[in-house]
């Protein structure tokens, strides 16, 4: 059984009188330990997919099974618990608390779970030992994203969800971040889902799910994912 499994997921937003179908008939699965890239153009339904996958939104039809549990019917509280304990998020705009130092930003997530990894250890792993007492404003974009990744990792999640992790970064820094993600996945065996519009990133994935117009266009398995260094875009 797959770690993540989408079965005929349909999501309809009610906008006043109008119903907008954001997703329909979305089915795919992701195996444990995989790096999965979900790729699609703007408006294809990526964000909705991410929201559902991250337990931030409900679905209209179908089922989503995460590590053997169908979250389609879960209560809000259960979903929160799911986000809290099992998912690590990395946002496009880092979403660090500007008022907390790097270490504290990690800690704010870490204190939510029972056995977090020590903040300093995680920060060392993302290469930011020296900056752990700096505030986000004192860090570069790449460094901030590293802090964000550290924050996600500190919870020791089963699933790492990354929403356009390089979207706000320059090319080189973006690559460094992706490398960090790839290395982390390899080292910890964590399942990583990266959502992006950048098709070039598909090369690094074990599995590529292409989304178009609210449904899965194509699922492709990469036998030999390439290290980030080799990918150019």
């Amino acid at each position, binding site marked *: 059984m797959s770690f993540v499994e989408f079965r005929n997921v349909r999501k309809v937003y009610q906008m006043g009188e109008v119903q907008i179908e954001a997703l329909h008939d979305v089915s795919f699965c992701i195996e444990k330990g995989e790096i999965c890239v979900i790729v699609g153009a703007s408006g294809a339904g990526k*964000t909705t997919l991410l929201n559902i996958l991250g337990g*931030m939104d409900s679905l209209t039809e179908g089922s989503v099974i995460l590590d053997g549990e169908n979250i389609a019917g879960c209560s809000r*509280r259960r979903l929160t618990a799911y986000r809290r304990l099992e998912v690590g998020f990395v946002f496009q*705009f880092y*979403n660090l608390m500007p*008022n907390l130092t790097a270490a504290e930003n990690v800690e704010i997530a870490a204190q939510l779970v029972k056995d977090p990894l020590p903040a300093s250890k995680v920060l060392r792993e993302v290469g930011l030992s020296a900056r752990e007492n700096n505030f986000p*404003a004192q860090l570069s974009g790449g460094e901030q994203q590293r802090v964000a990744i550290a924050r996600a990792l500190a919870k020791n999640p089963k699933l790492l969800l990354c929403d356009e992790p390089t979207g706000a970064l320059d090319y080189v820094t973006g690559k460094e971040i992706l490398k960090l993600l790839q290395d982390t996945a390899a080292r910890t065996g964590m399942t990583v889902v990266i959502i992006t519009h950048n098709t070039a990133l598909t090369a690094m994935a074990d599995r590529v799910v292409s989304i178009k117009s609210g449904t899965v266009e194509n699922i492709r398995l990469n036998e030999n994912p390439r290290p980030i260094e080799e990918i150019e875009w």
Partner: protein
Amino acid sequence: MVRSVLREIKTSLGRYLAMVAIIGLGMGFLAGLMQTRPSMIRTWDSYAAQAAFFDWHLISTLGWEEEDCAAVRAESDTEKAEGTRETDALVLPGEGSESAVRICQISREVNVPRLTAGRLPENAAECLADAGWLGEEDLGSRIVLTDNNDEDTLDAFETREFTVVGLAGSPLYIGTDRGNTALGDGTLSGFILVPEEAFSWDYYTDIYLTLTEKAEVYSADYDSLIDRTKDPVTDAAEAAARARYERVVGEAQEKLDDARKELEDGRKEYEDGVKDYEDGVREYEDGVKEYEDGLKTYAEEKEDAEKELADAAEELRKGRIDWMEGVEEFYRGQLSFRTLLAVPDPRLLPQAAAVYAQLAEAKMQLKLGQRELADGEKELEDARAEADEKFADAWQELEDAAQELADGKADLEQAKIDLAEAEEELADAEKKLADAQQEVDDIEEPSVYVLDRETNVGHAGYKSDTDVLAGIARAFPLFFFLVAALVCITTMTRMVDEQRTQIGTLKALGYGEGTIMGKFLLYSGSAAVLGCIFGFVIGSLVMPRVIWRVYGSRYSLGELQLQISPVLGIGAGALYLLVSSLTTWSACRRELREVPASLLRPRAPKAGKRILLERIKPLWKRLPFLHKVSLRNIFRYKQRVFMMVIGIGGCTALLLTGFGIRDTVADIGVLQYRDVTPYDFSITYRDALTAEEEAFLAGQDWLETAEPAFSGNYKLVKGNTEKSVEVIAPAEAIPEGIWLLHDGEEALSWPEEGQALICRKLAQSLGVKKGEKITLLDEDRSPISLTVSGIFDNYIGKTVYVSQDSLKALPGGMPEIKTVYANCAAGTDLHAAAARLLERDAVINVSISADKEALISDTLSSMNYIVMLVILCSGVLAFIVLYNLTNININERLQEIATVKVLGFYSLESAWYVFRENLLLTILGAAAGLVLGYLLHGYVIGLLDLEELYFERRIIPLSYLLSVAFTFVFALIVNVVMFFRLERINMAEAMKAAE
């Protein structure tokens, strides 16, 4: 441009409305509170003008007459002057129990009553009743003067029963208090207005007059008008009273003189009577003598007459005997003749013839004699009859005379009694006359009282009530104004921040700074204008009416007449507009200074900073992680913290002020009559206290202490300020439980000669300190210089305590002691005791402290409504401020909160993430508010500067507690509302780019 603003308003309607609301609230409170007092004053003023409420009230101990009225009316300042009669009486209204009421004459010119139901009386047996005492159901019922009234009161009226034909209010009784009386339980239940003809008195008890010049009630103009007219009116009143005195004495003397003349006449008559009597006696005595003479004469005459008659009878008898002898002789002659004849002897014939002739002669002689005898007999008979008759008549006459004499004697005896009585009567009359003369001589020159409106309880009470409002009206709107300004600043700053990109775009497109700023100015300006209009209209129309519902129910003044001042509205509106524009301008200016390019970039989030608290390692380490976050957030947004603390602090401060006002004011009666002057009552005597009265008091076992002390009104002078004060000078020995004079905790020792203890109010208003010199002036303005030996806590009245030795230095020497302060044994019915004391002629008043305390408490109980109003205001204020700021807080940190939620904070955890700050700020705000409230309370109390009352700043711990508790409740409500808003925050916000 306008369209763009309209669209902006539409999209941010909540924020716009919040701004309109807070400005409207501020404006409403300002307009409402500041216009309430003028409206209330206007209401009373127009009633006073319409009812011709008096300006001066003249009382003379001798009463007044129409002439006096006319004399006062002739004064140039006087418009109208009307004499009226009033007296207190015990009555039994149709239903209900015996009550003491004041019966007044219906006035037509001054203090005209206002008919509220029924009709005016048409005859002396009809009356109007106090609308505050009886209701419409009592129309047609009877009010009976009970037998418990004294003779004088009953005599004052032509009737003992009045039919209630109407209900009325009187400008003399606008409050609920009807005053005190010497009757019944000492309080008046109401008044009754009766027509002039219902009174049997030919004099007036009072004259009320109005002045030609008018000024609004309580205004400075009115005060100066009163100051200016006091002397002429007093002079006129005194002149009239003197004239009345002279008239009264003159008339009495005239009557007395008439009486004296009558008495003199009476005496003359008496003396004549005495003379007559004496004449009568003499006459009687003469009569008696005459009678006795008559009797004698009668007896003599009778004797004489009888003798005469007896003589006559004797003669007659002798005659008859003679006659008989003649007859015998005749017969013998006859016989001899016959014999002669028998012997035919013719010789004898001649003889015989001679004899015959002789016989015939004798016979004739005899017949003659017989006739003579018969005549004599008859004569005698007649004489006897005559004499009998005569003597009978004479006897009768004598008898009559005797009767007459007896009658005369009786008459004389009667006359003697009558005269004795008359003498007695005359003596009585003389004594009465002397008494009357004494009485006339004793008629004292009348005392004249010239009273102004301040002496009217309703008028004075209304003033202090409106003054309290004025104090509050001065302090609170300022506060709301500040808060409204703060809300404007935060809202506009936030709005400009949000529209940063738009500003940049507009600027890049080439719009001028003025145009861009114009938009924001239009936004905030229109909110200010709208808020001001709504606030002013609603505040002006609603607030005075709401307050009036509270106050109006305690005064019978009818509908509130709103006094709306457009100047106030425009002025305050301009101020609000200025503040909102200024805050907008300052918020915009910062942004507009930046170049478009930087504006188009999102503003770098405010850098995090370490806070001071972190330096205190041991403490910081122990704090839970999220608490640290909250603490740091608090110090991150200093402006917002400032706003929150001000807003919440303001709420707490308002609450504390409200509760504090109640604490300070509400217990003033208790403080005064329990802690400062704990005596049960004071007794006032008409004249100096006599040994007899003192002995009476000493003999009452229910009286525990009775302390005679001098009490009088003096002027206290310090520098150029002069205050009327009550001076109390007890005897040497200072009694227990009558006065407790303290300066804070320190008990003060009694002043010695040349020293004075003055109350705090005086010390404060005259700026006198302990050890300084003050001067007391008596009514002749003779000065006594004294050193202030202490300042004592006192709440009601302006009192100075001195030693009697100090007063002896006055030119008039020690003034008379007319007051006794007394304490009763526990359990004594004070009213019954007062009634017992009032029965004594020498006692003119007994003033029970408990009654005064109750009256004061009742008057000040309106404070509770003020406090409620303040709590309501604070609640609204707290809600708007907290809502606004929390809302901005949440809006600004939408992404942060969304992130926290995405990270897996449970609902309550993410709520706490925000609310922990609020809680902390609420604590900080409440703490600041307690300080601020303490200051504001002092300020408001300072504004409540009532002449006769000293408000000691006093806030009880419960008030601090309640203020904080209420603040937290308000904050809690806002946070609960906000919780649901937090719940609705979409986590997808976390994915969006920072604004």
